[in-house]
């Protein structure tokens, strides 16, 4: 029999403990579901891949000084590079890189920078 400090627990208490344990396991299960769902939704792994791919492309393009609009596929990710004129100065442009999943088209990561227009 379950004994605490030499006192025996009554039947009612044992029911309460069992109910409590049941509720706790329910809570744990719920939290695991919520956690995994959150992780799924965040697409952490894919997002990290997208971040790396976009950053790598920006470094490459900055080296080459070439920010032509276009699409680049890296694994499951498509990076779209767009450029728009910058209102503040004609010799500058706003370049936007957007990484999205090829399968679903879901946007994962975006970066936007002002770059010099290459003549």
């Amino acid at each position, binding site marked *: 029999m379950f004994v*605490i400090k030499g006192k025996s627990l*009554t039947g009612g208490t044992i029911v309460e403990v069992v109910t*409590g344990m049941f509720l*706790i396991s329910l809570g744990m299960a719920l939290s695991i579901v919520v956690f995994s769902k*959150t992780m799924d939704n*965040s697409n952490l792994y894919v997002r990290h891949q997208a971040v790396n791919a976009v950053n790598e492309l920006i470094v490459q393009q900055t080296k080459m000084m070439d920010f032509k609009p276009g699409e680049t596929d890296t694994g499951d990710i498509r990076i779209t590079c767009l450029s728009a004129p910058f209102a503040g100065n004609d010799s*500058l442009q706003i370049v936007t890189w957007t990484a999205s999943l090829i399968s679903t088209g879901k946007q994962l990561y975006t*970066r936007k*920078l002002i770059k010099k227009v290459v003549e």
Partner: protein
Amino acid sequence: MIRPLKHKLNGGALYYAIVVILLLSLFSSGFILLNRIWFHENVLFLKNTELNDNLDSASEWLKIQPGLVASGEIKELDIFGDSSIVTIEAKKWGLLRLIKSSARWRSLNIRRTALYSCLNNNRPALYLADNNRFLSLVGKCVITGDCNLPVLGIREGEMDGGTFTGKKMIDGKISQSKNLLPELSPGLFKPFSGYWDKSFSATDSIVSITDLTRNPVSLVSFNSNTKVIDCGKNVCLQNISLSGNIIIVATDTITITSSVHLQDILVFANTIIVANEVHGVFQLFARHNISIGENCILRYPSFAFCRAKQTVAKITIGKNSIVSGGILIDSDSEHTGSNRLEMGEGSKLTGTVYVNGEVGFAGQINGSLYCNKFYIDTPRAYYENFLKDAVIDSKSTPAMFGSFAINDSPDKLKPVKLCL
């Protein structure tokens, strides 16, 4: 009536309540922790990248359009028109520009402090004021870039039996110069001219020379107040290392020896003497005279500025010494003829060299040279407007580094370094 003392809970229920509360608090803290990790991993990462991109973009904008934030101004720029606010503060650090930029999101505040040099698009290799004399070239002279010359023009000269032996006298366009050099903008040196008279700024942290004895190694961030070391009348700097936001001031003479390590600091005195074999990065501001010894290397961006008040301004560069940044000689008075730059054999200057006076040319200039006349003093004769074995190149890579803008309205800013 309810009597609480009558309804006693048994011991088991109490244990049960405590355990449940404990577990509930564990779950709650778990969720808070999860939220925090999620926040840090994702949102902060994304925001951090965004803020850094905004700072990069602001820097790119400012480099192309330096007038966007004038020196002494603080402006908030909406970079992309979507409330991507970047705050920019511009001020002078000697002949350079100190730009402090910051971008903020909630408690995340990213700051950058950087030094920039100035560059104008139309930089002549040589601007020689029209003093009704030819420019005569002797020996292997190489002048690359556009030139503004006197109306009489350029010719092959003869000196001590030698003539011009180069391939082409000038590799660039030639235009006519005016009687006077392009005027220096007063704004170029106004923010700092008070230091010669020890009129310090209200935000300066002023210490006496004894501070150098106590702290021979000192590094001051550009994000804190400027440390001004008042050295009294004369000082000889030895075995010290000063870096960053520091200004050294003396009323008469400052001597810098080779045991001194100076990085980015400003030096103000009437006369500044740089001993032989001094290496470092610093800006010198003198009233009368700057003497740079032999085999000195003043790395980029270093400047020597001499502006006389009712006297003659003179800068001497020793043999095989290098000054990368710029040279400026001028005077308040109208009698600028006696102002002088003396270049030692094998000396190399990079950037803009502006001499409202005469130049004793020897060595090489990678950048632009503005002067009233040249002179060569030999035991046999004194030659005016003669250049012998001179190399002036405004199209070389070091010439593109940036220096100071004579009109104080540069076309471009060039990033020099990120500061602490």
